[in-house]
C-alpha cells in the first residue's frame, strides 16, 4: 500500500456484522440490565476484522511525524528527545497499575517519588515548595495566579492587576483573565526586552493594584531579560509578586535559577524541560513552585496528583542526567540555537541581532520581493522531511518564524537543516511557485486554512453530511 495516500477512517472500513473477536463461554448466567440504564439506540461502532484494524492503525501511525522520526524545531515547544528509559520506568507495572483512589498506605513508593522530584525541582529552580496538582502549563499558570490572589487576600489587600509583557505567551493574559484579574500590558523595547521605563510608569500609576508581574525568561524571542533584578525590585517594592512562566526554562537548566532572580511563584512544563512526549499537545504536567511561606496559599485545583506518568518520566530524566550533566542542557540548547541563527541570518531576516538563548525568531525571508511568506517556507520544509518551526508567533513581527533546536541534535542534523533552509531561500528566488504551492510530498497538500477556520469539519458525521450535500 502506498502509505503516502493512506487516509481512511476506521468507519469507512466497517462492514456490517463483521467481527474481530469472540467472547468466551458464559459461565455466569445472564442478568437483565435495567431499562433505565440501557441505550436508547445501538452504539455506532465500526465493525472490522483484526487484520483490517491492525493495518489501519499501522498505516495511520506511519503518517505521523515525531521527534523519533525527524528534526522538530518547533519554537517555544521544546521538542527534545524523549529517552526510552523514561518510558521503561513509567511502564513499570507497580507504578502504572496504581489507582488514584487506592489506600495511601499502598502508594508510598509513588508518594516518595513525588517528594524526590519536588526536591530536585527545588534545587534546580531555587524555590522552596512545589504542588504537583496542575495537569499542564496553563493549568499551572492559573494555579500560580490563584496562589498569588490567595496571598494578597490573606493580607486584606485587593490587587486585581497583572502586568504582562506584549511579547508574552498568550496563555499569560488568558490565565489572568480566568483568575478574574485584569491585564496591564508592558511594552517591549526594540531589542525585544521589557521596556523598563514603561514598567516604571505603570508601577507609579497603578502600583497599589498590581498583584503580580508575569514573565518568561528568556522571553518569547529567546532573549535573556537582563534587567530582571531591577524589575523584581520594582514589583516587590509596590507589593506585587513575580511570576515566572516556565515555558522557556530549558536554556536556564544548570545556568541560573528563577528563585535567585527574584521570582516568587513559577510553573514548570515538565513535559518540555524534562522530556516527555507532548507532540500531540499532551499529556503534560505543570507543577507550581513557590518561595518559602507561600505554600499555604496553594488553591485546591484537583483532588489528584496531575499526570503521574509525566512526573515519573521527568524524574527518570533528571536522574539519568544527574547533577553534573543536567548543567549541560541549557548551554547546549543555547549553542545549537545560536549556530543555526548565525548560519542563516544572511538569507533570513533577523530583526534582533544578538546572542539568543534556546530559540530565536526570524522575520521571514530577507528578500521580501519574491512574495514567499513564512507560511510558504514552513510548508516547504515539510517536503524536505522536517517539522515546521513555530510561525506567526510572537506577534511582534509580521512574518515570525521561531526556531528551537533543543540540546539533543548533532551538528550533522543542524547542518542538514541549515542546508535545506538555505535551499528554500534559493528556491524562493528561482522557483517561487514551487514554494508557494508546497507541500508536494505529504499525504495532504496545502490546506485551505480560511475554509478550515470558517467552516471546520471536526467529526465523522459532519464529514458524511458534507459529502451528501
Amino acid at each position, binding site marked *: 500500500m502506498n502509505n503516502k495516500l493512506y487516509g481512511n477512517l476506521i468507519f469507512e472500513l466497517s462492514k456490517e456484522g463483521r467481527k474481530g473477536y469472540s467472547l468466551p463461554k458464559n459461565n455466569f448466567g445472564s442478568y437483565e440490565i435495567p431499562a433505565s440504564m440501557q441505550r436508547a439506540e445501538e452504539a455506532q461502532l465500526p465493525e472490522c476484522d483484526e487484520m483490517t484494524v491492525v493495518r489501519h492503525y499501522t498505516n495511520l501511525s506511519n503518517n505521523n511525524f515525531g521527534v523519533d522520526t525527524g528534526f522538530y524545531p518547533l519554537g517555544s515547544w521544546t521538542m527534545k528527545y524523549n529517552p526510552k528509559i523514561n518510558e521503561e520506568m513509567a511502564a513499570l507495572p507497580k507504578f502504572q497499575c496504581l489507582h488514584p483512589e487506592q489506600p495511601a498506605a499502598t502508594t508510598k513508593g509513588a508518594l516518595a517519588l513525588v517528594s524526590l522530584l519536588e526536591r530536585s525541582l527545588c534545587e534546580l529552580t531555587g524555590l522552596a515548595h512545589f504542588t504537583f496538582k496542575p495537569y499542564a502549563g496553563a493549568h499551572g499558570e492559573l494555579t500560580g495566579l490563584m496562589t498569588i490572589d490567595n496571598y494578597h487576600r490573606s493580607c486584606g489587600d485587593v490587587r486585581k492587576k497583572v502586568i504582562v509583557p506584549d511579547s508574552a505567551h498568550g496563555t499569560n493574559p488568558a490565565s489572568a483573565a480566568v483568575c478574574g484579574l485584569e491585564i496591564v500590558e508592558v511594552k517591549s523595547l526594540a531589542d525585544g526586552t521589557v521596556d523598563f521605563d514603561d514598567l516604571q510608569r505603570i508601577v507609579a500609576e497603578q502600583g497599589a493594584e498590581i498583584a503580580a508581574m508575569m514573565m518568561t525568561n528568556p522571553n518569547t524571542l529567546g532573549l535573556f531579560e537582563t534587567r530582571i533584578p531591577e524589575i523584581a525590585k520594582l514589583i516587590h517594592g509596590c507589593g506585587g509578586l513575580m511570576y515566572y512562566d516556565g515555558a522557556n526554562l530549558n536554556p536556564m537548566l544548570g545556568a541560573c535559577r528563577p528563585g535567585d532572580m527574584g521570582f516568587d511563584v513559577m510553573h514548570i512544563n515538565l513535559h518540555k524541560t524534562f522530556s516527555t512526549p507532548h507532540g500531540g499537545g499532551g499529556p503534560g504536567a505543570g507543577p507550581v513552585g513557590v518561595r518559602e511561606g507561600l505554600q499555604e496559599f496553594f488553591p485546591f485545583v484537583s483532588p489528584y496528583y496531575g499526570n503521574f506518568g509525566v512526573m515519573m518520566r521527568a524524574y527518570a530524566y533528571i536522574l539519568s542526567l544527574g547533577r553534573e550533566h543536567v548543567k549541560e542542557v541549557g548551554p547546549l540548547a543555547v549553542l545549537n540555537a545560536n549556530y543555526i541563527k548565525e548560519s542563516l541570518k544572511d538569507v533570513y531576516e533577523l530583526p534582533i541581532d544578538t546572542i539568543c538563548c534556546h530559540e530565536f525568531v526570524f522575520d521571514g525571508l530577507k528578500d521580501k520581493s519574491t512574495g514567499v511568506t513564512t507560511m510558504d517556507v514552513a510548508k516547504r520544509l515539510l517536503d524536505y522531511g522536517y517539522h515546521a518551526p513555530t510561525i*506567526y*508567533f510572537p*506577534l511582534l513581527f*509580521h512574518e515570525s518564524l521561531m526556531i528551537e533546536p533543543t540540546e539533543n541534535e548533532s551538528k550533522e542534523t543542524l547542518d542538514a537543516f541549515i542546508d535545506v533552509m538555505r535551499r528554500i531561500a534559493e528556491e524562493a528566488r528561482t522557483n517561487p511557485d514551487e514554494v508557494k504551492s508546497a507541500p508536494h510530498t505529504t499525504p495532504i497538500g496545502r490546506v485551505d*486554512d*480560511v475554509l478550515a*477556520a*470558517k467552516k471546520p469539519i471536526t467529526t465523522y458525521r459532519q464529514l458524511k453530511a458534507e459529502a451528501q450535500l
Partner: protein
Amino acid sequence: MSKVIEGLYYSESHEYVRVEGEYGFIGITDYAQHALGNVVYVDMPEVDDEVTAGEEFGAVESVKAASDLISPVSGTVVEVNEALEDEPELLNKDAFGNWIIKVQLSDPAELDALMDAKAYESHCAE
C-alpha cells in the same frame, strides 16, 4: 505597498476613522488587513455599546493571529457592519470600503490626537 487614503484619521494601532458629521466610521487600515492575512472572523460590539478612545472594542481574527481592535475615539455605537459577520473577508478585499462600526462621537476633539494620511504612511514605514 499598502493603500492610504487622504482625509481619514489614523491610529498607531492601525485603525482609521472616517468622519461624517457627528458620526465616525471605524475600521482597520489596508496595512492592517495585509499584515493580518486572510481574516476569518470579526468580533464586534453591539449597538448602543460605549467605546472609549484607546480601549478595545472587538477583535479581528485571521489565519495568522487574533488582534484586538482599539477604538481611536470615544462614543456610542449606532451601527455595526453586519455584512462582516458572514463575509469577514470583505476586510481583505477593501479595508477602507468596509468599516466595522459607526460611532456617534462624544468628543470630536479626540480626532486631533490621531494621525493624518501622511503621518500614518511614515508610521507604517518605520
